[in-house]
Protein backbone atom coordinates (compact mmCIF):
# COMPACT_ATOMS: atom_id res chain seq x y z
CA UNK A 1 0.00 0.00 0.00
CA UNK A 2 1.12 3.56 -0.59
CA UNK A 3 1.05 4.22 3.13
CA UNK A 4 2.70 6.68 5.49
CA UNK A 5 5.26 4.04 6.48
CA UNK A 6 6.97 4.16 3.09
CA UNK A 7 9.45 6.84 4.11
CA UNK A 8 12.51 6.37 1.90
CA UNK A 9 13.47 9.68 0.26
CA UNK A 10 10.72 11.75 1.92
CA UNK A 11 11.64 15.31 2.86
CA UNK A 12 10.75 17.40 5.87
CA UNK A 13 11.25 14.94 8.72
CA UNK A 14 14.16 16.87 10.15
CA UNK A 15 17.52 15.75 11.47
CA UNK A 16 18.29 12.33 12.86
CA UNK A 17 18.62 12.79 16.59
CA UNK A 18 20.73 10.01 18.09
CA UNK A 19 20.78 10.07 21.88
CA UNK A 20 23.57 8.68 23.97
CA UNK A 21 22.58 6.39 26.85
CA UNK A 22 19.03 6.06 25.65
CA UNK A 23 16.94 3.61 27.69
CA UNK A 24 15.70 0.50 25.88
CA UNK A 25 12.13 1.43 26.80
CA UNK A 26 10.97 4.99 27.49
CA UNK A 27 8.11 3.90 29.74
CA UNK A 28 7.07 0.59 31.30
CA UNK A 29 4.12 0.26 28.90
CA UNK A 30 6.53 0.11 25.95
CA UNK A 31 8.11 -3.06 27.34
CA UNK A 32 4.66 -4.60 27.80
CA UNK A 33 3.70 -3.52 24.26
CA UNK A 34 6.68 -5.41 22.87
CA UNK A 35 5.96 -8.47 24.98
CA UNK A 36 2.23 -8.54 24.23
CA UNK A 37 2.84 -8.16 20.50
CA UNK A 38 5.29 -11.07 20.46
CA UNK A 39 3.18 -13.22 22.77
CA UNK A 40 -0.02 -12.65 20.79
CA UNK A 41 1.90 -13.35 17.58
CA UNK A 42 3.01 -16.67 19.10
CA UNK A 43 -0.64 -17.82 19.08
CA UNK A 44 -0.09 -18.37 15.35
CA UNK A 45 -3.19 -16.55 14.16
CA UNK A 46 -1.38 -14.12 11.85
CA UNK A 47 1.96 -13.73 10.11
CA UNK A 48 4.59 -11.10 10.74
CA UNK A 49 3.62 -9.58 7.39
CA UNK A 50 -0.02 -9.35 8.48
CA UNK A 51 1.06 -7.49 11.61
CA UNK A 52 3.20 -5.11 9.54
CA UNK A 53 0.18 -4.47 7.32
CA UNK A 54 -1.93 -3.67 10.39
CA UNK A 55 0.68 -1.12 11.54
CA UNK A 56 1.00 0.72 8.24
CA UNK A 57 -2.62 0.78 6.98
CA UNK A 58 -3.70 3.85 8.90
CA UNK A 59 -4.19 7.59 8.73
CA UNK A 60 -0.81 9.23 7.98
CA UNK A 61 -1.21 11.73 10.81
CA UNK A 62 -1.93 8.91 13.24
CA UNK A 63 1.03 6.91 11.93
CA UNK A 64 3.48 9.76 12.26
CA UNK A 65 2.38 10.94 15.71
CA UNK A 66 1.60 7.73 17.60
CA UNK A 67 5.16 6.83 18.50
CA UNK A 68 6.71 3.51 17.66
CA UNK A 69 5.12 1.29 20.28
CA UNK A 70 1.91 3.30 20.05
CA UNK A 71 1.54 2.01 16.50
CA UNK A 72 2.32 -1.50 17.68
CA UNK A 73 -0.46 -1.35 20.25
CA UNK A 74 -3.04 0.08 17.85
CA UNK A 75 -2.15 -2.63 15.35
CA UNK A 76 -2.32 -5.33 18.03
CA UNK A 77 -5.81 -4.19 19.02
CA UNK A 78 -6.90 -4.37 15.40
CA UNK A 79 -5.40 -7.84 14.91
CA UNK A 80 -7.02 -9.18 18.08
CA UNK A 81 -10.40 -7.77 17.05
CA UNK A 82 -10.15 -8.88 13.41
CA UNK A 83 -9.32 -12.43 14.47
CA UNK A 84 -12.08 -12.60 17.05
CA UNK A 85 -9.66 -13.12 19.93
CA UNK A 86 -11.12 -10.26 21.98
CA UNK A 87 -14.19 -8.06 21.75
CA UNK A 88 -14.21 -4.28 21.52
CA UNK A 89 -16.33 -4.24 24.69
CA UNK A 90 -13.67 -6.25 26.48
CA UNK A 91 -10.87 -3.89 25.47
CA UNK A 92 -12.96 -0.92 26.53
CA UNK A 93 -13.74 -2.47 29.90
CA UNK A 94 -10.29 -3.91 30.45
CA UNK A 95 -11.93 -7.20 31.54
CA UNK A 96 -12.65 -10.45 29.72
CA UNK A 97 -16.37 -11.04 29.26
CA UNK A 98 -15.99 -14.69 28.31
CA UNK A 99 -13.42 -17.37 27.59
CA UNK A 100 -11.01 -17.65 24.65
CA UNK A 101 -12.00 -18.62 21.14
CA UNK A 102 -12.14 -22.42 21.57
CA UNK A 103 -9.64 -23.24 18.84
CA UNK A 104 -6.91 -20.89 20.10
CA UNK A 105 -4.33 -21.36 22.79
CA UNK A 106 -3.25 -22.29 25.33
CA UNK A 107 -0.69 -19.54 25.66
CA UNK A 108 2.96 -20.60 25.57
CA UNK A 109 4.61 -20.48 28.98
CA UNK A 110 8.01 -18.92 29.72
CA UNK A 111 10.03 -21.98 28.69
CA UNK A 112 8.17 -22.40 25.41
CA UNK A 113 8.52 -18.68 24.75
CA UNK A 114 12.27 -18.76 25.41
CA UNK A 115 12.59 -21.66 22.97
CA UNK A 116 10.50 -19.84 20.37
CA UNK A 117 12.63 -16.68 20.61
CA UNK A 118 15.83 -18.72 20.37
CA UNK A 119 14.51 -20.65 17.38
CA UNK A 120 13.00 -17.78 15.43
CA UNK A 121 10.78 -18.33 12.42
CA UNK A 122 12.45 -19.12 9.14
CA UNK A 123 11.09 -17.47 6.02
CA UNK A 124 12.76 -20.09 3.79
CA UNK A 125 10.50 -22.46 1.85
CA UNK A 126 11.29 -25.46 -0.33
CA UNK A 127 11.43 -24.24 -3.95
CA UNK A 128 10.25 -27.65 -5.11
CA UNK A 129 12.44 -27.65 -8.21
CA UNK A 130 11.56 -24.09 -9.21
CA UNK A 131 14.75 -22.33 -10.29
CA UNK A 132 15.55 -18.63 -9.78
CA UNK A 133 14.96 -16.63 -12.94
CA UNK A 134 17.84 -14.22 -12.28
CA UNK A 135 21.49 -14.65 -11.33
CA UNK A 136 23.92 -12.17 -9.76
CA UNK A 137 24.99 -9.57 -12.30
CA UNK A 138 21.66 -9.53 -14.16
CA UNK A 139 20.16 -6.13 -14.83
CA UNK A 140 16.54 -6.00 -13.71
CA UNK A 141 13.68 -3.53 -13.91
CA UNK A 142 11.46 -3.27 -10.86
CA UNK A 143 7.76 -3.26 -11.61
CA UNK A 144 5.55 -0.24 -11.03
CA UNK A 145 3.87 -2.32 -8.35
CA UNK A 146 1.33 -0.34 -6.29
CA UNK A 147 -1.08 -2.80 -4.69
CA UNK A 148 -3.68 -1.54 -2.22
CA UNK A 149 -2.53 -4.33 0.10
CA UNK A 150 0.81 -4.91 1.80
CA UNK A 151 3.99 -4.87 -0.24
CA UNK A 152 7.68 -4.59 0.52
CA UNK A 153 8.69 -2.86 -2.70
CA UNK A 154 9.31 0.71 -1.55
CA UNK A 155 7.94 3.54 -3.67
CA UNK A 156 11.41 4.93 -4.34
CA UNK A 157 12.48 1.67 -5.98
CA UNK A 158 9.55 1.11 -8.35
CA UNK A 159 10.18 1.26 -12.09
CA UNK A 160 13.96 1.46 -11.56
CA UNK A 161 16.83 -0.45 -13.14
CA UNK A 162 19.21 -2.20 -10.81
CA UNK A 163 21.62 -5.12 -10.67
CA UNK A 164 21.05 -8.42 -8.93
CA UNK A 165 23.70 -8.75 -6.27
CA UNK A 166 22.68 -12.00 -4.60
CA UNK A 167 20.03 -14.70 -4.59
CA UNK A 168 18.98 -14.93 -0.92
CA UNK A 169 16.73 -17.94 -1.08
CA UNK A 170 13.17 -19.04 -1.70
CA UNK A 171 11.33 -17.03 0.94
CA UNK A 172 7.78 -16.53 2.11
CA UNK A 173 6.37 -13.74 -0.11
CA UNK A 174 5.37 -10.81 2.09
CA UNK A 175 2.60 -9.47 -0.14
CA UNK A 176 0.68 -12.74 0.01
CA UNK A 177 1.72 -13.69 3.53
CA UNK A 178 0.05 -10.49 4.74
CA UNK A 179 -3.15 -11.78 3.15
CA UNK A 180 -2.89 -15.06 5.04
CA UNK A 181 -1.25 -17.22 2.37
CA UNK A 182 1.92 -19.26 2.79
CA UNK A 183 3.36 -18.74 -0.69
CA UNK A 184 7.07 -18.30 -1.42
CA UNK A 185 9.11 -16.72 -4.20
CA UNK A 186 12.78 -16.26 -4.97
CA UNK A 187 14.29 -13.36 -3.08
CA UNK A 188 17.14 -11.25 -4.46
CA UNK A 189 19.25 -8.36 -3.30
CA UNK A 190 19.05 -5.72 -6.04
CA UNK A 191 21.39 -2.73 -6.02
CA UNK A 192 20.61 0.66 -7.57
CA UNK A 193 23.00 3.47 -8.28
CA UNK A 194 22.12 6.58 -6.29
CA UNK A 195 21.49 8.58 -9.47
CA UNK A 196 18.96 6.02 -10.68
CA UNK A 197 16.90 6.65 -7.54
CA UNK A 198 17.49 10.29 -6.69
CA UNK A 199 18.63 12.00 -9.88
CA UNK A 200 20.77 15.04 -9.33
CA UNK A 201 20.15 14.97 -5.58
CA UNK A 202 22.06 11.72 -5.22
CA UNK A 203 25.25 11.98 -3.22
CA UNK A 204 28.23 10.89 -5.36
CA UNK A 205 29.43 7.33 -4.89
CA UNK A 206 26.34 6.03 -3.13
CA UNK A 207 24.12 3.08 -3.93
CA UNK A 208 21.12 1.49 -2.27
CA UNK A 209 20.04 -2.13 -2.29
CA UNK A 210 16.66 -3.62 -1.49
CA UNK A 211 15.64 -7.23 -1.03
CA UNK A 212 13.11 -7.94 -3.75
CA UNK A 213 11.03 -10.98 -4.57
CA UNK A 214 11.02 -12.21 -8.16
CA UNK A 215 7.40 -11.06 -8.53
CA UNK A 216 8.68 -7.47 -8.26
CA UNK A 217 11.20 -7.87 -11.11
CA UNK A 218 11.41 -7.98 -14.89
CA UNK A 219 14.35 -8.15 -17.28
CA UNK A 220 15.81 -4.71 -17.85
Amino acid sequence: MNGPHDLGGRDGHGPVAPRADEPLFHAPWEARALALTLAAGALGQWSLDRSRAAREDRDPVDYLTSGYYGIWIKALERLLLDHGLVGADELAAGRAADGPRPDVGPAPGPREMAAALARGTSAARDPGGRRPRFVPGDRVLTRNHQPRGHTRLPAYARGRIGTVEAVRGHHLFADRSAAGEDVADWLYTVRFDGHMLWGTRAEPGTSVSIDAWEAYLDDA
Partner: protein
Amino acid sequence: MAGHDHEGSHLDDMTARVMAIETVLTEKGLVDPGALDLIVETYENRVGPRNGARVVGRAWSDRDFADWLGRDATAAIASMGFAGRQGEHMTAVFNAPGRHNMVVCTLCSCYPWSVLGLPPSWYKSAPYRARAVMEPRAVLAEFGVTLPEGTEIRVWDSTAEQRYLVIPERPAGSDGLSEAALADLVTRDSMIGTGLARAPSEGGR
Protein backbone atom coordinates in the same frame (compact mmCIF):
# COMPACT_ATOMS: atom_id res chain seq x y z
CA MET B 1 7.77 7.89 14.59
CA ALA B 2 7.85 11.47 15.65
CA GLY B 3 10.14 10.27 18.41
CA HIS B 4 10.29 10.78 22.10
CA ASP B 5 9.08 14.38 21.96
CA HIS B 6 5.55 13.14 21.44
CA GLU B 7 5.59 10.09 23.64
CA GLY B 8 5.10 11.74 27.01
CA SER B 9 1.65 13.07 26.20
CA HIS B 10 0.46 9.58 25.27
CA LEU B 11 1.88 7.94 28.34
CA ASP B 12 -1.07 7.65 30.70
CA ASP B 13 -3.47 6.81 27.92
CA MET B 14 -1.11 4.18 26.58
CA THR B 15 -0.46 2.66 29.98
CA ALA B 16 -4.19 2.09 30.44
CA ARG B 17 -4.64 0.82 26.92
CA VAL B 18 -1.80 -1.68 27.17
CA MET B 19 -2.94 -2.83 30.61
CA ALA B 20 -6.43 -3.46 29.22
CA ILE B 21 -5.03 -5.71 26.48
CA GLU B 22 -2.82 -7.58 28.93
CA THR B 23 -5.65 -8.12 31.41
CA VAL B 24 -8.13 -9.34 28.82
CA LEU B 25 -5.64 -11.70 27.16
CA THR B 26 -4.43 -13.02 30.52
CA GLU B 27 -7.97 -13.64 31.77
CA LYS B 28 -8.71 -15.56 28.59
CA GLY B 29 -5.56 -17.62 28.97
CA LEU B 30 -4.19 -16.27 25.69
CA VAL B 31 -1.02 -14.88 27.20
CA ASP B 32 1.02 -16.13 30.12
CA PRO B 33 2.34 -13.21 32.24
CA GLY B 34 5.50 -15.22 32.89
CA ALA B 35 6.11 -15.42 29.17
CA LEU B 36 5.68 -11.64 28.89
CA ASP B 37 8.28 -11.13 31.61
CA LEU B 38 10.57 -13.57 29.85
CA ILE B 39 10.35 -11.60 26.59
CA VAL B 40 11.21 -8.31 28.29
CA GLU B 41 14.02 -9.87 30.30
CA THR B 42 15.48 -11.45 27.15
CA TYR B 43 15.85 -8.14 25.33
CA GLU B 44 16.77 -6.10 28.41
CA ASN B 45 19.50 -8.42 29.62
CA ARG B 46 20.46 -11.19 27.26
CA VAL B 47 20.13 -10.22 23.61
CA GLY B 48 21.90 -7.00 22.72
CA PRO B 49 24.77 -5.45 20.79
CA ARG B 50 27.46 -7.19 22.83
CA ASN B 51 26.47 -10.32 20.89
CA GLY B 52 27.31 -8.63 17.63
CA ALA B 53 30.49 -7.14 19.08
CA ARG B 54 31.71 -10.64 19.89
CA VAL B 55 31.02 -11.72 16.31
CA VAL B 56 33.05 -8.78 15.01
CA GLY B 57 35.85 -9.42 17.53
CA ARG B 58 36.11 -12.98 16.28
CA ALA B 59 35.97 -11.91 12.64
CA TRP B 60 38.86 -9.52 13.22
CA SER B 61 41.02 -12.13 14.93
CA ASP B 62 40.15 -15.29 13.01
CA ARG B 63 40.48 -15.19 9.24
CA ASP B 64 38.67 -18.49 8.72
CA PHE B 65 35.74 -17.29 10.80
CA ALA B 66 35.62 -14.04 8.81
CA ASP B 67 35.51 -16.05 5.58
CA TRP B 68 32.69 -18.19 6.97
CA LEU B 69 30.84 -15.05 8.03
CA GLY B 70 31.15 -13.74 4.48
CA ARG B 71 29.87 -16.99 2.96
CA ASP B 72 27.18 -18.01 5.44
CA ALA B 73 26.64 -15.43 8.16
CA THR B 74 23.60 -17.22 9.59
CA ALA B 75 25.59 -20.38 10.32
CA ALA B 76 28.76 -18.59 11.45
CA ILE B 77 26.81 -16.42 13.90
CA ALA B 78 24.73 -19.36 15.11
CA SER B 79 27.97 -21.21 15.93
CA MET B 80 28.54 -18.55 18.61
CA GLY B 81 25.09 -19.16 20.05
CA PHE B 82 23.44 -16.06 18.59
CA ALA B 83 20.51 -17.30 16.58
CA GLY B 84 16.80 -16.77 16.81
CA ARG B 85 14.12 -14.20 16.25
CA GLN B 86 14.95 -11.48 13.69
CA GLY B 87 18.26 -13.15 12.96
CA GLU B 88 17.00 -16.14 10.98
CA HIS B 89 18.60 -14.99 7.71
CA MET B 90 21.81 -13.06 8.24
CA THR B 91 24.23 -11.35 5.88
CA ALA B 92 27.48 -9.77 7.06
CA VAL B 93 28.69 -6.79 5.03
CA PHE B 94 32.33 -5.85 5.45
CA ASN B 95 33.66 -2.33 5.49
CA ALA B 96 37.03 -1.86 3.81
CA PRO B 97 39.22 1.03 2.77
CA GLY B 98 37.12 2.90 0.22
CA ARG B 99 33.88 1.10 1.02
CA HIS B 100 31.40 1.80 3.81
CA ASN B 101 28.14 -0.06 4.50
CA MET B 102 25.08 1.27 6.27
CA VAL B 103 21.80 -0.45 7.15
CA VAL B 104 18.26 0.92 7.29
CA CYS B 105 14.67 -0.27 7.10
CA THR B 106 12.72 2.43 5.28
CA LEU B 107 9.39 0.57 5.55
CA CYS B 108 9.38 -0.28 9.27
CA SER B 109 12.16 -1.16 11.69
CA CYS B 110 13.76 -4.44 10.56
CA TYR B 111 16.95 -4.95 12.52
CA PRO B 112 19.12 -7.97 13.41
CA TRP B 113 17.81 -8.56 16.93
CA SER B 114 19.85 -11.71 17.53
CA VAL B 115 23.12 -9.80 17.31
CA LEU B 116 22.13 -6.19 18.11
CA GLY B 117 19.03 -6.51 20.30
CA LEU B 118 16.17 -4.06 19.87
CA PRO B 119 16.81 -1.04 17.65
CA PRO B 120 17.44 2.43 19.09
CA SER B 121 14.75 5.09 18.63
CA TRP B 122 16.61 6.95 15.91
CA TYR B 123 16.80 3.80 13.78
CA LYS B 124 13.00 3.53 13.93
CA SER B 125 12.44 7.25 13.42
CA ALA B 126 11.08 8.93 10.30
CA PRO B 127 14.19 11.11 9.75
CA TYR B 128 16.59 8.16 9.60
CA ARG B 129 14.28 6.00 7.50
CA ALA B 130 13.59 8.86 5.08
CA ARG B 131 17.14 10.08 4.65
CA ALA B 132 19.55 7.13 5.03
CA VAL B 133 18.78 5.97 1.50
CA MET B 134 18.91 9.38 -0.15
CA GLU B 135 21.66 11.25 1.67
CA PRO B 136 23.69 8.77 3.70
CA ARG B 137 26.71 11.10 3.90
CA ALA B 138 24.61 13.88 5.40
CA VAL B 139 23.15 11.40 7.90
CA LEU B 140 26.62 10.12 8.80
CA ALA B 141 27.73 13.70 9.43
CA GLU B 142 24.95 14.00 12.03
CA PHE B 143 26.50 11.01 13.77
CA GLY B 144 29.87 12.75 13.66
CA VAL B 145 31.21 10.39 11.02
CA THR B 146 33.16 11.79 8.08
CA LEU B 147 34.57 9.24 5.66
CA PRO B 148 37.64 9.78 3.50
CA GLU B 149 36.76 11.47 0.23
CA GLY B 150 35.91 9.03 -2.52
CA THR B 151 34.63 6.36 -0.14
CA GLU B 152 31.80 4.43 -1.72
CA ILE B 153 28.71 4.13 0.50
CA ARG B 154 26.46 1.12 0.12
CA VAL B 155 23.11 1.39 1.87
CA TRP B 156 21.18 -1.81 2.61
CA ASP B 157 17.40 -1.32 2.92
CA SER B 158 16.06 -4.32 4.86
CA THR B 159 12.86 -4.87 2.89
CA ALA B 160 12.49 -8.63 3.48
CA GLU B 161 13.54 -11.09 6.23
CA GLN B 162 17.26 -10.84 5.39
CA ARG B 163 19.06 -8.99 8.19
CA TYR B 164 22.37 -7.16 7.80
CA LEU B 165 25.30 -6.84 10.19
CA VAL B 166 28.04 -4.38 9.28
CA ILE B 167 31.55 -5.59 10.08
CA PRO B 168 33.42 -2.35 10.72
CA GLU B 169 37.07 -1.91 9.79
CA ARG B 170 39.47 -3.05 12.45
CA PRO B 171 40.95 0.06 14.01
CA ALA B 172 44.62 0.93 13.67
CA GLY B 173 46.71 0.16 16.71
CA SER B 174 44.68 -2.92 17.67
CA ASP B 175 47.35 -5.48 16.77
CA GLY B 176 47.89 -8.09 19.41
CA LEU B 177 44.65 -7.44 21.28
CA SER B 178 42.64 -10.45 22.41
CA GLU B 179 39.30 -11.28 20.82
CA ALA B 180 37.54 -9.97 23.93
CA ALA B 181 39.53 -6.73 23.91
CA LEU B 182 38.74 -6.28 20.23
CA ALA B 183 35.03 -6.81 20.91
CA ASP B 184 35.19 -3.97 23.42
CA LEU B 185 36.11 -1.59 20.58
CA VAL B 186 32.96 -2.46 18.64
CA THR B 187 30.05 -0.09 19.15
CA ARG B 188 26.43 -0.77 18.28
CA ASP B 189 26.40 2.05 15.75
CA SER B 190 29.52 0.69 14.03
CA MET B 191 27.54 -2.50 13.32
CA ILE B 192 24.65 -0.49 11.80
CA GLY B 193 27.10 1.60 9.80
CA THR B 194 26.38 4.94 11.45
CA GLY B 195 29.60 4.78 13.46
CA LEU B 196 33.12 3.42 13.35
CA ALA B 197 34.86 1.09 15.76
CA ARG B 198 36.75 2.83 18.55
CA ALA B 199 40.52 3.13 18.45
CA PRO B 200 42.25 1.36 21.37
CA SER B 201 43.42 4.77 22.61
CA GLU B 202 39.77 5.76 23.11
CA GLY B 203 39.40 2.99 25.66
CA GLY B 204 36.85 0.24 25.94
CA ARG B 205 33.13 0.50 26.15
